């Protein structure tokens, strides 16, 4: 019996690959298994190969792996492209319709998926037939699907539910008659723990809801659009609004306007949009208007690989804006962190009155995975310093509120337009304490120091999380979705006899110089794992003065996520 298993479904984009994968994954997640799914898709709507790989296990994994036990193929292309990773003796289930062929190292089960589906009511149910056949192969009962099917089709009536369940049953039976039930492939039973199943983008959307976001101006882009589409459904329930703007410049400036106006407003984009937002991000920093921007990284530059994994916007996020402003850049790694990071980002944005960029990557944004319960009550809303009417009236220059009063912390209380007694000016030009444009050299220097001073000596709590062994042979530095592959690779290296520590970056601005230094200092070797070609995080370590005699890069920039085995092999090769 297995304690983990990899299942993959492949076909033409638009023929139900995603929903098949989703149904399978949700059903297993509900049994208490940990599930991690990764979708391979292209930048087109119909046609083109796509697949959905689902890793099921008794232990939590946050990465895909390098082999497949069961491949479900809706066309020959899916076999040709994926059979290489099906392990020796693994199973391929394919539709009789396309007269499938497969190499000898796998066991091919030809099931008349379409024909059975048609007999059950409609050809589109071939997905269901295939799920039934999969269940049989893995020794799972068909009733694990009952709940999911009922929820999905209830609206269409009991007849449709019954037809779908029947299709699953017939797929199961057909597979059984073929001798396709394989005791070796049977999964050990799970403990039934209930978890949620979501992707990073889902968690970001929920996090925005909990953080009090009420305005979201955004422009669609893969892989960010889900967050916007989610909030379009949810914000009306709390009196909020999503505006699909004409471009990302409008999205960013509207976000600034709404935050200045007193809302918690958020925008969400990917690399190309982040580039367009740069001037306005500078405006947010210069005017000390809190803003939160989510950047779901994808393959760049330009349109690059819009549906593929990459982590190459870090330097742009840190240095893309002209001039010099205070800014915070947060880098969650899991859906749970995506959820809580939104509230944190707003609290920080409003506490320090500056832009905060939350950076995910395509793998984290789009990979659905088992997720622990998320706690609305744990999301605290702290809006930072806000002056009352009376306080504003008492703190004036030339009849205007000193919105940019010099203070010890550099943070000056805000006030929302509409408040009596609080009139002041805001400008992207250099300004005096009341916000009026100002060119005097002395004031300029003081204002620059005030703004930049807010974050000058700050290292945000939890910027680096170090786990693993003391005095390790290697400290692996990771960021974003790589957390999963690194965790697993560390285990593999330990099995080889190495001592391994893992330092995961949760914030890269303010760059946690001391925390990272502490996290790597006892390692014999440091390896920085990142999905880009130039080693941006390693450059940042150098730039900010984190030092170690032996730092190496482990880079990947072919559009694919890191696999645990590959990190394992590469690091092993460094010794």
């Amino acid at each position: 019996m297995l304690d983990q298993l990899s299942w993959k479904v492949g076909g033409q984009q638009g023929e139900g690959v995603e929903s098949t994968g989703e149904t399978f994954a949700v059903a297993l997640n509900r049994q208490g298994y940990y599930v991690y799914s990764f979708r391979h898709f292209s930048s087109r709507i119909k046609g083109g190969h796509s697949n959905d790989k689902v890793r099921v296990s008794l232990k939590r994994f946050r990465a895909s792996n390098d082999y497949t036990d069961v491949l479900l193929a809706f066309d020959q292309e899916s076999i040709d492209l994926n059979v290489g990773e099906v392990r020796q003796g693994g199973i391929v289930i394919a539709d009789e319709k396309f007269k499938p062929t497969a190499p000898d190292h796998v066991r091919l089960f030809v099931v008349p998926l379409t024909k059975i589906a048609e007999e059950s009511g409609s050809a589109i149910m071939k997905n269901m037939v295939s799920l039934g056949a999969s269940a049989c192969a893995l020794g799972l009962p068909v009733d694990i699907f009952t709940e999911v099917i009922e929820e999905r089709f209830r609206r269409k009536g009991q007849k449709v539910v019954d037809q779908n369940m029947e299709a699953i049953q017939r797929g199961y039976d057909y597979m059984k008659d073929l001798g396709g039930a394989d005791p070796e492939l049977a999964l050990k039973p799970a403990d039934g723990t209930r978890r949620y199943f979501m992707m990073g983008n889902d968690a970001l959307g929920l996090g925005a809801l909990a953080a009090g976001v009420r305005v979201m101006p955004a422009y669609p882009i893969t892989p960010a659009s889900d967050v916007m589409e989610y909030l379009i459904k949810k914000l009306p329930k709390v009196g909020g609004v999503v505006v699909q703007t004409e471009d990302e410049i409008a999205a960013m400036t509207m976000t600034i306007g709404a935050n200045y106006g007193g809302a918690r407003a958020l925008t969400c984009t990917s690399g190309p949009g982040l580039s367009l937002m740069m001037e306005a991000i500078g405006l947010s920093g210069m005017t000390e208007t809190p803003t939160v921007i989510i950047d779901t990284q994808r393959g760049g530059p330009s349109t690059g690989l819009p549906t593929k994994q990459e982590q190459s916007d870090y330097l742009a996020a840190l240095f893309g804006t002209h001039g010099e402003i205070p800014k915070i850049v947060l880098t969650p790694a899991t859906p749970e962190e995506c959820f809580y990071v939104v509230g944190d980002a707003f609290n920080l944005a409003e506490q320090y009155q500056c832009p905060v960029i939350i950076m995910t990557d395509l793998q984290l944004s789009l990979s659905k995975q088992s997720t622990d319960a998320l706690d609305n009550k744990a999301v605290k809303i702290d809006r930072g310093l806000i002056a009352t009417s009376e306080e504003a009236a008492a703190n004036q220059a030339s009849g205007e509120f000193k919105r940019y009063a010099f203070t010890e912390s550099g943070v000056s209380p805000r006030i929302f337009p509409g408040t009596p007694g609080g009139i002041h000016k805001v400008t992207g030009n250099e300004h005096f304490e009341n916000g009026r444009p100002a060119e005097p050299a002395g004031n300029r220097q003081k204002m620059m120091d005030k703004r930049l001073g807010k974050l000058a000596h700050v290292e945000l709590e939890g910027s680096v999380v170090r786990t693993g062994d003391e005095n390790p042979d290697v400290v692996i530095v990771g960021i974003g979705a790589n957390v999963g592959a690194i965790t697993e690779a560390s285990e593999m290296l330990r099995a080889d006899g190495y001592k391994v520590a893992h330092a995961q970056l949760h914030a890269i601005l303010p760059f946690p110089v001391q925390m990272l230094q502490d996290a790597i200092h006892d390692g014999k070797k440091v390896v920085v794992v990142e999905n880009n070609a130039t080693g941006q995080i390693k450059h940042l370590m150098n730039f900010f003065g984190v030092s170690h005699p032996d730092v190496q890069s482990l880079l990947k920039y072919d559009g694919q996520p890191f696999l645990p085995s590959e990190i394992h092999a590469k690091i092993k090769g460094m010794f």
Partner: protein
Amino acid sequence: MATVKDFRNDIRPNWCPGCGDFSVQASIQRALASLGKEPHEVALISGIGCSGRISGYVNTYGFHGVHGRALPTAQGVKLANRDLTVLASGGDGDGFGIGLNHFMHAVRRNMDITYIVMDNRIYGLTKGQTSPTSAHGFTAKTTPSGNIEEGLVPTQVALSAGIGFLAQGFSSDVNQLVGLIEQAIQYKGFSLVNVYSPCVTYNKINTYDYFRDNIFNLDKVEGYDPTDFLAAQRAITEHDGLVTGLIYRNDNKVAYEDQIPGYQETPISQADLQVSDDIFTAALREYA
């Protein structure tokens, strides 16, 4: 109740003596006072240019942002606090050059905002380059042998985009301009007041005299019906855009804020941001 004086502050505008923008400033101040607004109830969001400085010169909440983006910024402010009177303002380059995209979409979106453009047909702040509203043949630093592009007619563009309130004024006729701004602010939806506001320093062609000689005042036309779309289009076309007065208004349009599903009467800026456990739990359950 606030008077015109309450909308003034102690800053001396850095505009050149004789610049048309002074009249626009004065007209905004007079209109706000005569509408009975209090200074703190108004937010004036401006772009970058000589004209963009206006948000500093009127005693209201003021936000001077980046070049060309006054409109999206202003829309954000309005969404956060629908009770505010939100004005956006800037130059012809700001609004119809770098910001034209936002203008077209602000018109389509139709939030209750008034946009006042100081159209001098030149880039003033950057010292005299040709603007998108400069006519064909116009000579300036960037078109020394005459502009080979056609001048954009803001009123025509606004009308084509489906605007609900369209007026045009001239800095020399403050009384008319005050009235137009008042009506624009009162209009529930997006309104444009494009103002011919001469740049005395860099535009030697479109001078006060030029506008005085060429402008056709629709307010003086007996029987002109500003609710007649085709009449508005004809007037603009016949006079090459050089008309003043209330050109068009459509009172059948519904403002964006009044169409947002679930949007509350209470401004978002005053709302309780904590989401209820009921709503949250239901949302989370979708991922079970």
